[in-house]
């Protein structure tokens, strides 16, 4: 039970860790150059974007190497940068096992996505701008994970929100993309509200927003204040990580170019919520606290909801989006289990980063060869035409369903077993979710790569260029072996322990545990059902009506309908009332006054007849009246 989080030490050396701000600076400078110098950089802009991302990755690797050179209790190094808000916030970076794991994932997978985008966006006339936004995204995400205080984290958090808005709406000439970007932005604002208010409460209660000072001030025991902070931060995490009830933006976010989907779903953005929960874990989500339980419940519910949505989608990207929701749900569940679950949550986050990027970029490769067709009912039999894409996609598929010995198997199974141990109900829900994952991912693979050709007439599927397939191969290598490397022997657990705490001895991975075996059986059953329905049987080229359960899942569990009836329509009524009041009330008053004055003066105008004698008479009468009045008051 003892959570031994190492003290944060001020970095004293002169190595790479002191220069870790370069990680953020490189992509930021890239974005700046590409945006400010505009079309002068069109010819080489994409190369600059890739170079900046790679440079950032190199810095991350060097910082990582230096970090593991320290002793275990020295592995939390803070780098002071400058005084941001005097007396309140010192801006600095925290390089510790947790943040460096994220930094490696973000820059590593992010760079691969950058490289892939060279090929994917080669026909887009705005490719340079695309790379500028990608760089901005990476920079913001790095600031989010590296900042040593909540304010820095929040700036990165908002930067990620901005970049995601720009990228989801990258093809803003499509109304659907513009709407999706706006939706993502608005839903994220709800989460940001939670994070922001949470930060306010932290500041007023503890007087600091720096991670290194909070540890001493928050005792670890839960009280009303930490519970409130925990729930507010969880709301923020839900917004960024697309957890219920703020999940609705994720599926629409598929309107962006596919590399963006990969970047949002694998390396950045949706992982930010998990990071927030794990980073705040020792302070506001201690093991057994209400906030942690809430996080676990949110995760369990979302993993089921995402899996159910994934079952019914014919759009390959939306199916993958549902699976992202589901997998992030697993991570959130793991993050809600206290230090025992953190290592698995982060482990799953890393392996998921690889296999989900693999799957998304694979889907992008398929679309690239199929005239941007996303409907899986118009695919079929593609494995012979896209061998590399098929092989890499298949590895990603095996990893995500938890095929034994692949990456997803170790990390997801770890979460499930820990969950069954700590929260049996949620744990078995996660087992069920894994079975559904087996179904919908198999359905996706069978519909896409197997069975009859159901292509559109003008489709000529072909393998993508190597600038796209090589990143796929690298990612599928990660999907193959990374899980075993991270989990077996407790490598990641031991590495992360100084940052997140936990018992001294890492948990031993149990290949024959009951939940693990049940999971495998359920996954096999799910895959078998998918084979019967979509592999062996012919897939109808037109979507069948389906039962009400299918409709339920197709409509994203009526999440949008709920939001519309609960928030959008009352909001519209409110604006209508306000507009009515403005038009009739305020405008009526102002316009009525003006009309009254105008009408009166229009009538008074008639006095000016143009007859000089009339004027003379009025002067005469006026003079007579004046004289009379003076006589009356006796001044003469």
């Amino acid at each position, binding site marked *: 039970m003892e959570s031994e989080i190492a003290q944060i030490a001020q970095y004293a050396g002169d190595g790479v860790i002191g220069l870790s701000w370069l990680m953020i600076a490189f992509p930021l400078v890239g974005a700046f150059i590409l945006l400010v110098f505009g079309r002068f950089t069109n010819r080489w802009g994409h190369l600059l974007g890739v170079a900046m991302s790679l440079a950032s990755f190199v810095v991350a690797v060097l910082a990582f190497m230096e970090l593991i050179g320290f002793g275990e209790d020295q592995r939390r190094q803070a780098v002071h940068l400058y005084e941001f808000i005097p007396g309140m916030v010192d801006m600095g970076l925290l390089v510790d096992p947790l943040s460096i794991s994220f930094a490696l994932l973000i820059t590593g997978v992010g760079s691969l996505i950058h490289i892939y985008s060279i090929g994917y966006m080669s026909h887009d006339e705005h490719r340079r701008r695309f790379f500028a936004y990608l760089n901005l995204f990476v920079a913001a995400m790095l600031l989010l994970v590296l900042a040593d205080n909540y304010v820095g984290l929040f700036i990165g958090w908002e930067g990620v929100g901005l970049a995601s808005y720009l990228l989801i709406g990258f093809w803003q000439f499509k109304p659907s993309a513009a709407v999706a970007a706006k939706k993502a932005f608005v839903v994220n604002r709800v989460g940001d509200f939670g994070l922001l208010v949470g930060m306010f409460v932290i500041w007023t209660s503890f007087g600091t927003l720096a991670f290194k000072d909070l540890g001493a001030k928050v005792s670890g025991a839960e009280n009303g204040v930490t519970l409130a902070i925990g729930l507010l931060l969880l709301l923020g995490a839900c917004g960024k990580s697309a957890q219920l009830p703020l999940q609705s933006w994720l599926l629409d976010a598929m309107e962006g170019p596919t590399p963006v989907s990969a970047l949002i779903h694998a390396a950045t953005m949706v992982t930010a919520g998990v990071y927030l929960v794990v980073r705040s874990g020792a302070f506001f989500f201690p093991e057994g606290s209400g906030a942690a339980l809430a996080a676990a419940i949110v995760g369990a519910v979302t993993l089921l909801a995402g899996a159910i949505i994934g079952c019914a989608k014919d759009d390959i990207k939306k199916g993958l989006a549902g699976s992202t929701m589901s997998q992030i749900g697993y991570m959130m569940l793991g993050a809600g289990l206290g230090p025992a679950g953190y290592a698995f949550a982060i482990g799953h986050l890393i392996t998921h980063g690889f296999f989900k990027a693999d799957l998304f970029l694979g889907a992008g490769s398929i679309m690239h060869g199929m005239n941007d067709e996303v409907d899986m009912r118009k695919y079929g039999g593609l494995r012979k035409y896209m061998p590399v894409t098929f092989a890499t996609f298949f590895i990603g598929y095996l990893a995500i369903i938890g095929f034994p010995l692949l990456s997803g198997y170790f990390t997801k199974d770890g979460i499930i077993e820990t969950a069954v141990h700590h929260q049996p109900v949620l744990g078995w829900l996660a087992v069920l979710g894994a079975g559904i994952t087996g179904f919908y991912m198999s359905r996706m693979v069978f519909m896409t790569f197997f069975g009859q050709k159901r292509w559109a007439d003008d489709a000529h599927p072909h393998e993508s260029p190597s600038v796209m397939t090589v990143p796929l191969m690298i990612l599928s290598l990660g999907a193959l072996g990374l899980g075993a490397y991270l989990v077996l022997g407790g490598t990641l657990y031991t590495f992360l322990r100084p940052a997140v705490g936990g018992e001294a001895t890492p948990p031993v991975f149990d290949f024959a545990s009951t939940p693990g075996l049940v999971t495998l059986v359920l996954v096999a059953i799910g895959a078998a059902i998918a084979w019967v329905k979509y592999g062996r049987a012919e897939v109808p080229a037109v979507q069948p009506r389906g039962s009400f359960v299918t409709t339920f899942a197709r409509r994203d569990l009526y999440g949008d309908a709920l939001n519309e009836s609960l928030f959008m329509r009352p909001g519209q009524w409110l604006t209508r009332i306000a507009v009515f009041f403005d038009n009739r009330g305020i405008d009526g008053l102002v316009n009525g006054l003006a009309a009254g004055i105008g009408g009166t003066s229009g009538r008074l105008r008639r006095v000016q007849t*143009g*007859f*000089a*004698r009339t004027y003379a008479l009025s002067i*005469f009468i006026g003079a007579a009246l004046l004289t009379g009045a003076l006589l009356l008051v006796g001044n003469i």
Partner: protein
Amino acid sequence: MTTHYLVLSALLFGIGAVGVLIRRNAIVVFMCVELMLNACNLAFVTFSRQVGNLEGQIIAFFVMVVAAAEVVVGLAIIVTIFRTRRSASVDDANLLKY
């Protein structure tokens, strides 16, 4: 003693005022205005005599100067209007209105 002068002045002023109000011919209206001015002059001089200082007489001179200047400008306007409109009626010169 001076009452008669004042009565004469009031009568002249009244004739002038009525003339201004009821006559249409600009020249006649103009002469009526002069009549009013001179009625005032008479009143000033009378009061000057009555009170026993010269201020009223000085003001009468000023009024004469102003009246002379007014005649110059006024007659010029009337002649110009007559040339363009072939009419000296003040009621015909009613373009400046609402």
